[in-house]
């Protein structure tokens, strides 16, 4: 593996006496889709929160392209090139789909142009929003309040919002939760297309079928400890994983 895009070294995070993450060391290589799996409460979302700066790690280092992200406020980490979605979808209730596609875009214009109506001040933002809107099949829903859409569509809006920021690394927290098989398959196809453009994706997902068919590489977390890693086919047969997780219900 060449130098990974995202590198976690000995990342530890505790809440009270609970070790949510214990010395997690892992890497996400550029242009790959990497999955994190593990039972409920394994620390997967905590890991996302540490990477994005929502939580501060007790110790350890998170690096993106070699730059340490520890201690940066969340918005600066986002500007370094990490975008995310949330397990409990977090859209902006007062905004339409279209507005979601504009709000998270990085600033390319001077501050006073940002005060002008978007069409005059930042036409490039509109172009980008249209691109992403078409990619996710949201064009017909453009002016709908995003919160009024069905669950699966809300997840797409969230992914689209993350993508408008032109991230280097996209973090997806259970991207197909609550979706049926066909919807999940559509999302899988979209992810593959994104990978083809060079985007790196790190995702948490409980849908094993989805994970096994999509990810290039997997990490398995259990009680905050990385217990296994490898290609999906290896992880699937790893006895520790079967004990901790897959063995329970399969």
């Amino acid at each position, binding site marked *: 593996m060449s130098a990974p895009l995202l590198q976690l070294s000995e990342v530890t995070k505790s809440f009270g006496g609970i070790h949510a993450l214990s010395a997690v060391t892992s890497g996400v290589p550029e242009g790959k889709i990497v999955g994190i799996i593990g039972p409920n409460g394994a620390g997967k979302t905590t890991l996302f929160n540490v990477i994005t700066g*929502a939580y501060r790690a007790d110790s350890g280092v998170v690096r993106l392209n070699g730059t340490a992200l520890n201690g940066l406020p969340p*918005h600066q980490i986002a500007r370094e090139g990490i975008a995310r979605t949330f397990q409990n979808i977090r859209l902006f209730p*007062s905004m339409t789909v279209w507005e979601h596609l504009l709000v998270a875009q990085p*600033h390319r214009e001077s501050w006073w142009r940002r005060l002008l109506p*978007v069409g005059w001040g930042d036409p490039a933002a509109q172009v980008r929003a249209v691109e992403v809107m078409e990619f996710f099949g949201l064009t017909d829903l453009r002016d709908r309040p995003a919160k009024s859409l069905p669950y699966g569509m809300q997840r797409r809006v969230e992914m689209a919002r993350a993508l408008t920021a032109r991230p280097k690394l996209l973090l997806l927290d259970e991207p197909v939760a609550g979706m049926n098989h066909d919807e999940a398959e559509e999302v899988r196809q979209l992810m593959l297309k994104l990978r083809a453009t060079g985007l790196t994706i790190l995702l948490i997902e409980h849908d094993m079928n989805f994970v096994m068919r999509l990810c290039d590489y997997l990490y398995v977390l259990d009680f905050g400890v990385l217990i296994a890693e490898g290609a999906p086919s290896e992880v699937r047969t790893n006895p520790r994983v079967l004990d901790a997780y897959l063995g329970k219900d399969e």
Partner: protein
Amino acid sequence: MSTYYASLFAEAGILLLGALSVYIILATGQLSLGNAAFMAIGAYLSSYLTVELGMPITPALIVSAIAAGTIGVIVGFPALRLKGIYLAMATLGFGEMIRSFFINFPAMGGSGGFHGMAHISVGYIWAWAGGILVVLILVERSRVWLEMQAVHDDETAAGLVGLNTVAIKVGAFGIGAAVAAISGGLFAHHHVYIEPANFGFERSIDFVLATILGGSTLGLGSLIGAILLVFLPEFLRPIADWRLAAFGTLLILVLLVRRQGIVDRTLLRGLTFRKAAS
């Protein structure tokens, strides 16, 4: 136009700016009950500049707006640590602090007030009020406004999608304070006499009321709220002593029926005959 109506229109223009000052801060999810303080700063500073230094009114207003805006930014930082009702209480405290400062500030007349300002016309007041409203309506379609909305809706998510929530919230306080100062400067030069009691808690409440009544999701709402707040009690004069009670009742009824205020984006879409989303 009779002087009576001219004076009402002047009041409405001044109240519009006060309401907008609350609206701008509220757009980032922060409720300020102390904007009369920024109004007081604008009123006293602009009066000092025109009366004592002989500065023309327009630059005096601009200087006052910049000064009050700076103070707004300074107030905005501690406000970051407070949310909801606690922020409202803190801003209320700030309002009382500034009011009592002017009571104990003999250089500007103390509790006796300050006078000597040259009277300004209704047209001048509305040039400012209308101008600021139009600029704001344009800004409502900008990236910056979307970012403010995002902070209003979900501050944590806004930060995680890359928005500098601190700059947005503090900036809104600064701009809101600057607009309140313009309102104060116009008030001072319309009434040509000011005293600390002009800028008490009731004034701050009037601003909030106009914003909430008219519609707190659009700048246009503040216009409607300000006009109603000034003119409705006047039209209710025939019922004499009961007019304020009747006005209060109307207010409660409006808010019961339309919690979002009289105008909102949905209503506006309907009115402009744009194709409604299916």
